[in-house]
């Protein structure tokens, strides 16, 4: 009897373990390549580590230096926040418009769908090189096109005032993935809703604001979070397109961290920088989550409540 119980217990433990075993390749990867380095960088943020020699414990010095003795820290932070404020709404609007366009029943829509998604497949390095050519103030195609209209284009990558706009435009070009997420959601909306709205006399704009927009708020919410995070982490484009210039006007926080680590060889300091950004992202995401109850609409929740309400009556 006792033996049987013990055996039973063992089987149950093994039974509970089985699913984890199946996802163990992912768990191992997460521990080794994500959690491990994460913890390591947190530890390193309390050290002075010039890479070529041994790390030295300095306590909170990296953090105090960051807040009190590094003007570039605040400048880079401001630039990145400015970029996020410009980029997030722009990318949400463009990807939503594109998603609306490619869900229209037009001939050849599949071709457009592919074309609009294409930038998301191209690697960031190639994108940077292409935009570098487009924005070249002397030989670039953009200023050539503007000159045909009689407009003298700005010196995109040379004038510090326009450089950040350049980066926003180049980043907003790669909204293919967001567009696709919107698109699948829009396609999933039942056509009945539109039909009955049309019968009630709602025009296409009214249909968009009253049906499409409320129903895709969960996707909007998801895209808002991911695009905020990616905006705050932007590095590839500035690294390759402007390298922080002109006059450090695009010296993004990501580049600040990268240069501290790999150019100035201050790995401990860079770790502290990175952890501070992690906390900012965490707080912002929490804030967006908090706000979601006010504007995100979940169809299931409503249905559920109705059912319960029905029973009560």
């Amino acid at each position, binding site marked *: 009897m006792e033996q049987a119980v013990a055996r039973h217990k063992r089987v149950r433990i093994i039974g509970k373990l089985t699913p984890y075993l199946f996802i163990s390749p992912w768990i191992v990867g997460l521990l080794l390549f994500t959690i491990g380095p994460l913890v390591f960088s947190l530890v390193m943020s309390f050290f002075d580590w010039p890479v*070529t020699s041994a790390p030295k414990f300095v306590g909170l010095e990296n953090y105090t230096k960051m807040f009190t003795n590094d003007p570039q820290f605040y400048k880079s932070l401001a630039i990145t926040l400015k970029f996020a404020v410009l980029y997030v709404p722009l990318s949400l609007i463009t990807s939503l418009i594109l998603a609306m366009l490619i869900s229209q029943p037009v001939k050849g829509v599949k071709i457009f769908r592919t074309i609009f998604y294409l930038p998301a497949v191209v690697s960031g390095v190639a994108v940077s090189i292409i935009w570098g050519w487009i924005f070249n103030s002397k030989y670039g195609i953009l200023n050539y096109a503007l000159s045909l209209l009689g407009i003298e284009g700005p010196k995109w990558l*040379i004038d510090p005032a326009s450089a950040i706009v350049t980066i926003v435009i180049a980043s907003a070009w790669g909204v293919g993935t967001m567009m696709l997420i919107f698109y699948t959601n829009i396609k999933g909306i039942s056509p009945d809703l539109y039909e009955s709205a049309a019968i009630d006399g709602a025009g296409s704009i009214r249909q968009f604001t009253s049906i499409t927009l409320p129903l895709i708020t969960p996707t909007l919410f998801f895209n808002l979070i991911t695009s905020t995070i990616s905006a705050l982490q932007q590095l590839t484009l500035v690294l390759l397109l402007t390298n922080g*210039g002109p006059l450090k006007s695009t010296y993004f926080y990501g580049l600040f961290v990268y240069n501290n680590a790999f150019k100035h060889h201050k790995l401990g300091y860079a770790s502290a920088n990175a952890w501070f950004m992690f906390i900012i992202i965490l707080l912002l995401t929490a804030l967006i989550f908090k706000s979601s109850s006010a504007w995100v609409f979940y169809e299931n929740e409503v249905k559920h409540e109705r059912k319960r309400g029905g029973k009560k009556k």
Partner: protein
Amino acid sequence: MQKAKGKSWFIVVILASLFLSACGGGGTAEPAQDGKSAGKVTVRFATWDSEENLSLQQQLIDKFNEAHPDINVSLEAYGSEYDTKIAAGMGAKDAPDVMYMWNYPTYKDALEPLDEYIGKEGAEFKNNYYETLWNYNSANGKILGLPVGYTTHVIYYNKDLFDKAGVPYPKGGWTWDDLQASAKKLNNPEESISGFAFSGKPDPYDFEMFLWGNGTAYVDKEGNLQGSVNSEKSIEVLTMFQNMLKEGYAITTEGSGSTEMKSGKVAMFSNGAWSIGSLKEAGINFGVVELPAFHDGSAVSIVSSSGISMSKDSKKKEAAWEFIKFWTSEEANKARIDYELPVLKSVVESEKLQQDERKQVFYNMLEQSQDYTPASYKVENWSEISDRLGLVFEQIFNPSTMTDPKAALDEAAQ
């Protein structure tokens, strides 16, 4: 019960196979890293070269491996992210045994001092190198690398544009006043030809040579910026460059100026030997000439040098030294002659490079530039100072700011 038993067996098998594969990976990788498979010592050698130069290097290494049955050199090509990877390797205590090196002050703590090794080879060995180069391959008075190649900076000029404008070709011993006078004559806005081009974001390391030419430098002997970088002579240099822009016969470029030179729209620009190949390819009829001198100064160039170093943590130093000697031998210098200026006097003599119309200019500049040490070797935090100076130069040359050089340099000195 039977079913559960089967399940647990299945789990055991999975666990075992996971464990085995984890060990297997390590098991096969280790002997190679240990470097002692079958009595052979494996020396890891990191290079920043790519494409054609890389295959040339591999051929050279194959030759070495054939001649040394007990050593096997394996080439690791890090490409454009060379510095990041080297730094990461040093941090992880997994640096290659032998590596290309240029930025000695930054990496000095992880490199093996070579003075003793060189001493054992005899005085002739050391004297065969150009003296200037030892300065550049040392840090804190210790030699940390053997010179492999170098370039000094010179002025490239487009002969066709000079002919068209009827301006005589520049000659060694000329001055900046001469350059400006020629540039004014060569400048032709109607055909959008500029007399002179220089980078709008010059690398501060390179730019120091112009300060040297005017008898000053970024820092004084103690490594202070104040009073040197904002000395009257420094301001004079920056003002001269800015004035060339203001007067309209010179332009700033986004890169080194090589692209603009290739387009045939620029009459003169300054660069190292890197542009020779691409200008030839672009079919530009060009010449090179020594840098101009300042009115009462001299023509001095920075040396962009490359060397080969040994990791301090290497466990195969003897084999590594053997390979370093080969890599800097006459044979190797000759093998690289198409893309690297030889650093051995004996090779320069035997290959008659002093008679080469273009190459001799680089050697003349090298000999004129002895006794100058870049600021990066004198200060501890060069990468930060370099950042700051880079920003200041940009402010001075950027058309939207054109900051007054004195004000900008005073701020940099703070």
